[in-house]
């Protein structure tokens, strides 16, 4: 899922914003997105399984939820003019046609502050049944 989300964001080409190919962590443990403002980082997939139906022959039908987080840090005192456009564009990665075979698509947007930096965190969740 990470590749599809990265490709979608890359196709949008937001002026003044960068899209990094790296994961959002550095060697020192401080997230890279705090060092590089207005640079979008896409994290790797995290997968969880929930049992949907259990059959008496031992077969389980499960729902697999694949989560991908995207991070964007901007100056908290003055937001970029196209900030809302960028957030809306990243959210639309949820509906990317390149992501197939899923039953549910969800995205949450959370904002936190670290000193004078506002961190916008997107969590994409895709559910498939197996």
């Amino acid at each position, binding site marked *: 899922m990470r590749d599809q989300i990265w490709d979608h964001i890359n196709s949008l080409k937001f002026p003044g914003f960068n899209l990094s190919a790296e994961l959002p962590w550095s060697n020192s443990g401080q997230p890279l997105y705090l060092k590089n403002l207005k640079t979008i980082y896409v994290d790797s997939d995290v997968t969880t399984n929930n049992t*949907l*139906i*259990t*059959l*008496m*022959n*031992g*077969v389980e*039908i499960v729902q697999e939820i694949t989560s991908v987080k995207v991070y964007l840090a901007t100056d908290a005192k003055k937001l970029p003019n196209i900030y809302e456009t960028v957030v809306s564009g990243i959210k639309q990665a949820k509906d990317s046609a390149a992501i197939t075979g899923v*039953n*549910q698509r969800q995205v949450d947007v959370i904002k936190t502050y670290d000193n004078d930096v506002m961190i916008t965190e997107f969590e994409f969740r895709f559910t498939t*049944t197996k």
Partner: protein
Amino acid sequence: MSYILSSPSANTNPVLSLTVSGATTSNDAPLTIPSLQDVTINASTDVYTWTQLDKTAKLQVPTTSTNSISTNIVVDTALFFGDSGAEVGSAANKGLFKLSTEKVLVDFEINIGDRDSAAGGKKITGKGYVTGLSPAVSADQPVWVTPITITVDGEYGVASY
């Protein structure tokens, strides 16, 4: 006392098997249903009740039974619509859908206990009709599931493996 457990690893999980009643060797391929969510073997006996002036409680005697087997399964294509490669006219070839719509009398058996051990398991047998199919799917449960009722014609039998 030895309890009857259900475990797929010990071959003690219930498996429902249907065969066209009166089938010959050319169409006796069974329809085997292992993907059961739950099973209930119903033996509901009617009761005749009356009162007598010399008794303080009602008197009851059992009369005839209404028997049925109820289960819920996950729908499988070959199970539901039949296996075209199976013997023509057999239960495996027809599938649950045709067994129900064509009202085919089937012989059924379902194990209680070990399917591989004469000492460990028994099977409930009988004749009946496949009824009560209502496959359903939803956005929250995107897997087709259907209840099945085997409406039993007559009495149950008990046999060993």
